[in-house]
C-alpha cells in the first residue's frame, strides 16, 4: 500500500477520534485543531515506520502529549488575559449537540466537558478514551503504559472522582 493511501486511510479511521480527544482535553476548538493537525503531520512523516496495529496507540500518544504540553504551558502562564480568551474561545455549540437537543441536556453536556477538562491526568485521558471513545482496554493500556487491570481500576476511580465533583458543583448551585 502506498504511503499516501495508508496516511489517508488512517486519517479516515482515527482523525475524528484524535480531534475529539484534543477537544475534550483542552476544552478549546482552536487548540484542538492545531493539535490534530500537528499529529497528522507527524503521522505523515512516520507512517512508513509504523507497524500495523500500532498506529492508534501511537496517534493517541502523540495527541495526548501535545495536549499535555499545552496544558502545562497554560498552568505556567495562567492569567487574566488567558481566562478572558478562554471564555471567548471556549468550545462552540459543537457538532455533538443536534438541533433538536434540549437546552438542559446541552447544559449538562457542557458541565460534563468542563468537569472533565478539570480532571487530573491520567484520570481525564482514561475517561475520554474508555468511557467517551469506548476504546478497548488493551489499546488504552498500551497507550498509557498501564496494565489492563490498572486501566480498569483507574477508570473506575476516575469516574467516581468526576461524579463527586459534579455532585459538589450541583450542591453548590442549589445552596
Amino acid at each position, binding site marked *: 500500500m502506498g504511503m499516501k493511501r495508508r496516511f489517508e486511510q488512517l486519517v479516515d479511521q482515527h482523525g475524528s477520534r484524535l480531534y475529539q480527544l484534543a477537544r475534550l482535553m483542552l476544552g478549546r476548538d482552536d487548540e484542538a485543531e492545531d493539535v490534530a493537525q500537528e499529529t*497528522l503531520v507527524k503521522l505523515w512523516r512516520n507512517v512508513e515506520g509504523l507497524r500495523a496495529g500500532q498506529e492508534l496507540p501511537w496517534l493517541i500518544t502523540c495527541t495526548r502529549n501535545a495536549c499535555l504540553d499545552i496544558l502545562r504551558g497554560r498552568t505556567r502562564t495562567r492569567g487574566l488575559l488567558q481566562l478572558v480568551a478562554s471564555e471567548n474561545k471556549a468550545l462552540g455549540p459543537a*457538532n455533538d449537540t443536534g438541533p433538536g437537543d434540549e437546552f438542559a441536556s446541552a447544559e449538562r453536556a457542557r458541565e460534563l466537558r468542563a468537569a472533565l477538562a478539570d480532571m487530573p491526568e491520567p484520570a481525564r485521558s482514561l475517561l475520554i478514551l474508555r*468511557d467517551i471513545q469506548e476504546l478497548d482496554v488493551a489499546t488504552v493500556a498500551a497507550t498509557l503504559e498501564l496494565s489492563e487491570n490498572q486501566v480498569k481500576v483507574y477508570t473506575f476511580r476516575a469516574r467516581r472522582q468526576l461524579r463527586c465533583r459534579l455532585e459538589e458543583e450541583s450542591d453548590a448551585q442549589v445552596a
Partner: protein
Amino acid sequence: MHKSPDSFERDLERAIALENSRVTPHDPGLAADWALKRELAGLGAAELPQRVRARARRTALAQQRGPWLLGIAAALVAAVVVTVVLQSPARSPSVVTPTARDLAELQFAFDTINRTGKRAVALAGREVQESLVMPDLGLAELPYAGYVRPYFERPDRSG
C-alpha cells in the same frame, strides 16, 4: 490512584461488574457510576474538520518537498560554479623578476620626473613672484613685529 492492594482488588471487582452490567446495578453507588458512564458515552463524537485535514496534508507535502527543492537549488548552484570555472582561461600566477636594465630605466624615469618637477616649480615661482601682492597680515600690531616682518617680506622664505 495508589491505594492499598485490597482496595485495588475491590475496585477491580466493581469495575468489572460495572463493565459487564447491561442494566442499572442494584448498588446505588454503582448505579450512579453506570448512569455517568452512559452520559459520558452520549457526549458523542466530534468530526475532524476538513480544513484541519487539508492543512495537515499541505504542511506534510510542503515538508516533504522542502529537501527536494533545496537539493535542486544546490545542484543548480553547483552547475553554475562548475561551468564558470571550466570556461574561465587557465591563468597561472606569474612572478615578474625585474632585470637590472628594467630597474635602471625605472630609476631614470623617477629622476627625470623629480628634476623636471623641481625646475617647473622654481620657474613658476620666479615668474609670479613680481606679480604677487603681499597681504596685509596686521604685523604692526604684534609686539615683536620687527622680528617677524623680515621673514614674511623675504622673497625666499625657506629658512
